[in-house]
């Protein structure tokens, strides 16, 4: 894997990594919790980016996969005492199957573009209503995980301080970043980009479009579910109306859209901007007694970015810092 920009960038990245690793020792729990929110957004944004940015498939129902990951792992833990990591794997499997099902149906029936996006919303909302009436997992009243105060963090049981989740998510975000970069350098990445640019041309070059689109959806869904499971054990409560709602799907895509769809660092940059400014808005909102300021800011950010800089903040930053095209 080539590091773009050579030695200088490698050093900068190393310093950044070191800073991120020691950060929890220097900041309080509040900042740490904000960072956890940021990392969730960065991770989820990257997962969504694989489907949209690379393969060009617009999913507006991604909350479905996060929600499935959350509910499956949480329910198994609460009802059967299944260890969280096994539950997470089960959740990933369920989400992958769901993604495969939606993708297979859509592609076989030739549903694309607008209609595909609407279909993803429909499946997500359908699932939300189902879970609202699914009393075994608490229905609309929610599912609650038992919270025990421990003297130390237990990674195996996923019970721990924000710092523990911070490191977990940091590792995951880094992992998906490396995965994305690797995939883009290999045939699958090239094929995805070709499909995104021009499906008919891609097919004429021997690309089995159906198979590669499926791969993108399944991978994206599976990775998203991991975050869902972690979210369940972090928040310790789940409600269908918050987890599966379309508003959640919109939240997931806002980061990558702001930062730059299709780029590697775009979702991370976008997540950072949205989380920090979003926090500021929430604080300002409660100080001035104005509800909904954060959502207002999210909406405004979307409109402004699409108007002024549709390719996102990261490409613009990259140009300004003259980092070159290679630093995707």
């Amino acid at each position, binding site marked *: 894997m080539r590091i773009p920009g050579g030695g200088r960038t490698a050093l900068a990245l190393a310093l950044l990594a070191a800073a991120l690793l020691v950060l929890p020792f220097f900041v309080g729990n509040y900042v740490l919790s904000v960072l956890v929110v940021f990392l969730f957004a960065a991770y989820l944004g990257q997962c969504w980016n694989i489907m*949209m940015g690379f393969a060009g498939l*617009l999913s*507006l129902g991604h909350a479905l996969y996060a929600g499935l990951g959350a509910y499956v792992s949480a329910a198994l833990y609460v009802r059967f005492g299944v260890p969280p990591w096994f539950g997470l794997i089960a959740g990933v499997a369920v989400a992958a199957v769901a993604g495969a099902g939606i993708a297979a*149906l*859509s592609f076989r*029936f030739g*549903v694309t*573009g*607008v*209609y595909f*996006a*609407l*279909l993803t*919303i*429909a*499946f997500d*909302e*359908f699932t939300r*209503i*189902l879970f*609202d*009436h699914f009393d075994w997992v608490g229905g609309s009243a929610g599912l609650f995980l038992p919270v025990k105060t421990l003297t130390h963090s237990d990674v195996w049981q996923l019970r721990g301080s924000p710092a523990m989740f911070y490191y977990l998510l940091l590792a995951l975000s880094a992992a998906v970043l490396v995965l994305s970069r690797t995939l883009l350098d290999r045939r699958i990445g090239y094929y995805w980009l070709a499909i995104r640019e021009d499906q008919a041309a891609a097919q004429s070059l021997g690309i089995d479009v159906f198979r590669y689109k499926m791969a993108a959806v399944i991978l994206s869904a599976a990775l998203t579910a991991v975050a869902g499971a972690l979210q369940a054990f972090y928040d310790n409560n789940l409600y269908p109306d918050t987890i599966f*709602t*379309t*508003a959640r799907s*919109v939240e997931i*895509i806002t980061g990558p*859209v702001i930062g730059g*769809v299709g780029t590697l660092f775009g979702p991370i940059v976008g997540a950072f901007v949205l989380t920090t400014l979003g926090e500021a808005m929430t604080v300002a909102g409660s100080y001035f007694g*104005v*509800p*909904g*300021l954060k*959502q*207002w800011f*999210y*909406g*405004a*950010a*979307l*409109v402004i970015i*699409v*108007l002024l800089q*549709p390719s996102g903040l990261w490409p613009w930053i990259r140009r300004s810092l003259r980092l070159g095209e290679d630093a995707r």
Partner: protein
Amino acid sequence: MPAYVNFVVAGFLTGAVYGLMALGLSVIFGVVRIVNFAHGEMMVLGMYGTIMLNQYLGLDPLLCAPLDAAVLFGLGFALQRGLINRYIMRPEHEQFILMLGIATLLTSSMLMGFGPDARNVQPDYALDSYELGSLVLDKVRVFAAAGAFVSVGLLWGFFRFTRTGKAIRACADNQVGAQVVGLDVKRLYAVTFGIGAACVGAAGTFMLLLVDVQPYLAGDYTLLSFIIVIIGGLGSMPGALLGGLLIGVSEGLSAYLITPSLKSLISFGLLIVVLLIRPEGLLGRRA
């Protein structure tokens, strides 16, 4: 008379309002080809507008409808003219994101302006009903449906008989041809968006007679509009009305047969089936 008939008729009447709401979306998509993700938000805006008119001018909600429609027409026109027109040629997902952003802005603005609590109007006839045999119909429902049907009729007349209406239909059929004949397509798009917004504004007024309003309804109405328009046929106006009535009746029936809260399940299920099997809907033409 079997008990479910009341539910079906009530659903039919509600469906008329749904139909008007969806008609606005159909008009916009059929002509301007923009997927208006902010449709439900505009409707809720219309509902709040009615609340204000009712509160400060003491107007009966039914009389608010034309005013509401006029204001929303202006807003829609300005929005299209000022902002959305630039996105006609841009990739689909950029249009989406733009409308999503506008939708989010609208919802949060309404949250800020009106607060999260539900509000409603209380016209004098709120608790009255008509009785036809064993059929009991709430006056509000009948009036709302009547208003909706009248609006649809006016719209139909507009598109059939006025010059602007015919020009808009020409645009929808053949955009290049329309330009060649000298039609100002951009202005017509703005007018069309305005009309779509006006529909949804009027629909909002009528809907307020049936439900309470709060900012978070917007998303549900956007989705419902899409469900209706797709089932009825994207770009088909009779289809939108038919779809609205269908959804209204199905909601009424499912309220009777199963839990009311599952009514949306049927709607989403229908949407999935239609998207897969027959994306052009019942009456639409292939996009």
